[in-house]
């Protein structure tokens, strides 16, 4: 328990430090800020004055504290490119990303675990070989290329699903499958190998000797032992999905956090980049913390 409390406190300390680092890093490109707002004819003095006026010349730490104070009051600043209030953009973007991310997580475990179980249950059969090969391929296929292939097939050729944008359920299908693809492949592999590893444990021999049916051993005893570590690590999948969402949202024109962040970087819109990158840093850190705590709780041996 003490280990967990320590871990939580430490994570928050590191989070504070890393967000400061990200904050400072984004200011390295500060020279471009003036280009987004001032005409090309502006003199060097004008640019310097502008930086002074918007507070970019203060020490980083002061700027960071000022920024956190503003964020605490709900003032997230405005976009440089279109002056939109970030606070009003944020709710919409976060909601959209949550929808897509949740759908992907559901697919990762909802498809990955049953397939991994099937492969382990029928190990070395044609079913196992095809599931395992598909999972190797699934981990190797770059998701932007997969996106392009599914759009080509299901959208341009068959016309079943829209290729981009956001609307009803139909718009969610292709992006969530692409976003989940690697996680599914990974979960299949993890489930399969965890189940096979548990199969070789002594308790399985004892269960067999005591006359339990194979199916009961699998679905009750082995499954429970195998799934705990996999599900307790769900937080790590969150981090992975955040990373891939940057690409997948951009491809499918899904108006979420990933898309606005990538566009912000491309357009050098630093208030946007600042807020949404800090947001993702927080989300990923919390996901990792959840994975760490979950894993400790699920493994009695690690609970000191």
């Amino acid at each position, binding site marked *: 328990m003490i280990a967990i409390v320590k871990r939580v406190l430490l994570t928050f300390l590191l989070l504070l430090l890393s967000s400061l680092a990200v904050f400072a*890093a*984004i200011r390295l490109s500060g020279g471009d800020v003036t280009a987004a707002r001032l005409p090309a004819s502006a003199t060097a003095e004008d640019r310097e004055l502008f930086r002074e006026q918007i507070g970019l010349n203060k020490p980083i730490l002061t700027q960071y504290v000022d920024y956190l104070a503003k964020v605490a009051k709900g003032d997230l600043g405005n976009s440089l490119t279109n002056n939109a209030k970030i606070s009003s953009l944020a709710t919409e973007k976060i909601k959209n990303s949550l929808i897509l991310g949740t759908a992907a997580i559901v697919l990762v475990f909802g498809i990955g675990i049953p397939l991994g179980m099937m492969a382990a249950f029928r190990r070395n059969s044609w079913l196992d070989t095809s599931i395992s090969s598909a999972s190797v*391929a699934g981990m*190797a296929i770059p998701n932007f290329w997969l996106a392009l*292939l599914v759009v080509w097939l299901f959208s341009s050729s068959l016309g079943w699903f829209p290729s981009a944008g956001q609307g009803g359920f139909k718009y969610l299908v292709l992006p969530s499958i692409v976003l989940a693809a690697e996680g599914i492949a990974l979960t299949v592999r993890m489930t399969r190998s965890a189940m096979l590893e548990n199969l*070789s444990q002594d308790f399985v021999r004892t269960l067999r000797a005591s006359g339990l049916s194979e199916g009961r051993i699998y679905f009750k005893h082995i499954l429970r032992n195998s799934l705990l570590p996999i599900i307790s690590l769900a937080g790590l999948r969150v981090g992975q999905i955040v*990373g891939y969402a940057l690409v997948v949202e951009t491809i499918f024109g899904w108006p979420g956090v990933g898309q606005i962040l990538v566009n912000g970087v491309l357009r050098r819109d630093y208030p946007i980049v600042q807020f949404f990158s800090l947001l993702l840093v927080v989300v*990923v850190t919390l996901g*990792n913390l959840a994975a760490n705590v979950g894993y400790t709780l699920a493994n009695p041996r690690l609970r000191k």
Partner: protein
Amino acid sequence: MNVFERALRNKQLVAGMVLGTLVLLLGIIGPIVFGDYAKQDLLMGHKPVGTPGFLFGTDALGRDLAARATFGIRISLVVAVSVTAIAVIMGTLIGLIAGYLKGTVDTVISWVVDFVWGFPLILVAVLAAASIGSGLLPVILAVGMVNTVAIARVVRGEVLGISEREFVVAARAGGYSTPRIVVRHIVPNVIPVALVLSSYYVAVAIIAEASLSFVGLGAQPPLPSLGQMVSDGRNFLRLNHWEATIPGAIIFVMVLSVSLIGDGLRDLLDPRLRTAVERAVSK
């Protein structure tokens, strides 16, 4: 059976090696054979595979896709392999220091390493691009940083386990110096793990480079990155799908080959893992 025979019987390793060699050869020879990747001819745009003079056809600007794709392989491999190689060396060093010295040094290193390790490579690369601008440099920095901590994390764990084993205790009791113990007794036991992991991390690095270039934050034109070629080609799928499918397929084969090599090496080099798996499979 010696290692070489075992390697030859390892289907994944052989398949990975064959595919990897093919891609490597394409990357080395291609740019020499196919010539200038930037030469354009707007009237020769969107030619399909097999057009005379253009093995893979041409892109929207009439540039030779074969020349561009093979040069793209070079960029991809240089970024992923060389940076991961440096990361393996640095990560192993950091892991050795943390795992063998233990104490405060280990605690602090582990905090940082665990923290950074949790971040997805693509996010780190996007943040790096936000900081120093688009290009290959942010990708290189991100790959270097994330892969270094990933290796350091595992090496540290291995070292912790190994340094408690009898042969290390015996060497210590025998009065050997710390550097000698580390170099002669610990490093050889850590290298297989680092090697197996590095092939997986090369795969992740290839995907990260391609993804960043795909969204426009990686390699900048006229450099022909495979990810960027897919991005350019996706607007012309109906006209000439090869512009997007060929570079995508090349990335897929590259990543597939390094992951197969990783799987193969794991079975070959890590006897603990192999026996565990074999025991399970043979029931």
